[in-house]
């Protein structure tokens, strides 16, 4: 209330001006009338509202943080990232194996293409983006060797080349190979949405359980970008 003492008459005039300028039509009308021979009250509306009071800065101001604009930006809703199309790991005999984008099955499992394909998990990063880009392929599918048949024989230092649908390629270097019991697959790490870019290659390994038609383990190779 102590800030409201000031200049009531002037304030009222400007307030009316401010109110009318809040309407686009009123503002346009005001802007279009400066050639009028005699000044009218509408010309005041063309003037930006000037402070009639200067409220003290609240101590709360130190505790609030602007977090940008909520205005709709179409660019936020268009996914135009280059997508991976093939993978080459010469060290284990993989040459330009096709990569397709995959999601999740109804039972919550990651989708995996047939023996000849590699699935890129479309809900995570593309290779080279922040977070984990996940590529998975079979070790063996319906009696045929899968693309990642020999992933467990890759070595730290092996090069991985990813080709994208815009014609570009990115190179990665394997830095770590792990074998996990499937019940203990570190999904938080494997499917990390954030963090340094890592290319995570997954297949199966360990003993094959014939009754479940499934392997006991997952073999995971982690690779990081090189030459960037």
């Amino acid at each position: 209330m102590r800030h409201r003492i000031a200049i009531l008459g002037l304030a009222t005039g400007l307030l009316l001006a401010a109110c009318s300028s809040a309407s686009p039509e009123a503002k346009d009308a005001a802007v279009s009338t400066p050639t009028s021979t005699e000044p009218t009250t509408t010309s005041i509306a063309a003037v930006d509202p000037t402070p009639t009071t200067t409220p003290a800065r609240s101590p709360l101001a130190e505790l609030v943080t602007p977090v940008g604009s909520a205005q709709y930006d179409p660019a936020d809703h268009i996914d135009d990232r280059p997508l991976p199309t093939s993978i080459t790991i010469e060290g284990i005999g993989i040459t330009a194996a096709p990569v397709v984008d995959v999601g999740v099955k109804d039972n919550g499992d990651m989708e995996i293409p047939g023996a000849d394909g590699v699935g890129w998990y479309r809900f995570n990063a593309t290779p080279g983006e922040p977070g984990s880009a996940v590529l998975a392929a079979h070790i063996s599918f319906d009696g045929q060797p899968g693309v990642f048949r020999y992933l467990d024989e890759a070595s730290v230092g092996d090069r991985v080349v990813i080709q994208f649908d815009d014609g570009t390629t990115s190179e990665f270097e394997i830095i770590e190979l792990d074998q996990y019991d499937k019940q203990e697959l570190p999904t938080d790490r494997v499917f990390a949405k954030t963090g340094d870019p890592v290319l995570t290659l997954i297949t199966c390994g360990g003993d094959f359980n014939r009754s479940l038609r499934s392997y006991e383990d997952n073999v995971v190779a982690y690779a990081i970008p090189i030459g960037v």
Partner: protein
Amino acid sequence: MKKLIAVFAATLMTLAIAAPAMAQSEARIHLIHGIPDTPVDVIVDGEAVFTDFNFGDTQDLSSLAGATLVGLQVVLAGTDTVAIDAGDVDLPASGNYSITANLDAVGTPTITVFANDTAAIDAGSGRLQVRHTAAAPAVDVKADGAVAFSNLSNPNEAKADLPAATYSVEVVPTGADEPVVIGPADIAVKDGESLIVYAVGSLEGGSLTVLTESITGLGAAPEAVPTGNSPVESGIPLGMVAGMLVIATIAVGGGLTLARRSN
């Protein structure tokens, strides 16, 4: 009033020191300006918390969780014209909230508090929460041509978990196909994220549009990565030998292979 603000002042240093820890607490409170073409100042107990707050701007009030905003007023920027006189407003002590300054159904500026749904989302899905905070009648919200949410009125919301994808969204009067009052606009529902879309502005004033905010980190990873349904031959050397084995398999087990393929 004065007592409370005095309490704020007295605890300011404590709060400032505690702020990093509080930021990690569960409280997340955002204030969103949802009235087009109306820059405002936000006043608490006669003092400006922030000034020249513009349409779409968002302020994080999480550090004030549990506090009472005494005599909260929203005034037209740089003036004394009170657009919203909200009185004393208690901020939630914990939880995830969005507070909007918006128009009610008939165009009067008001404050609306929404609790955000932060329940876990299945892998491969995202959440869409749509809030009617515009001076407009009830609407239907269509996604890819089909009504996703019907008869949504100010200040209500509707929500659904959807397969993560980009949807073409239109807003039409309830029960009608046209006129399309907002959109069509591409809306990307992302894996593990809740996208909150606010219909804002005024139908009469021709300023209907949308604001958006998202809450991330609600998702899940796939349950498993099943990458093998048949055994590999054990004890067999690599490379060419494997190739030879394929040939041997064809030669010896051709009939069996054919039988399997016919399944």
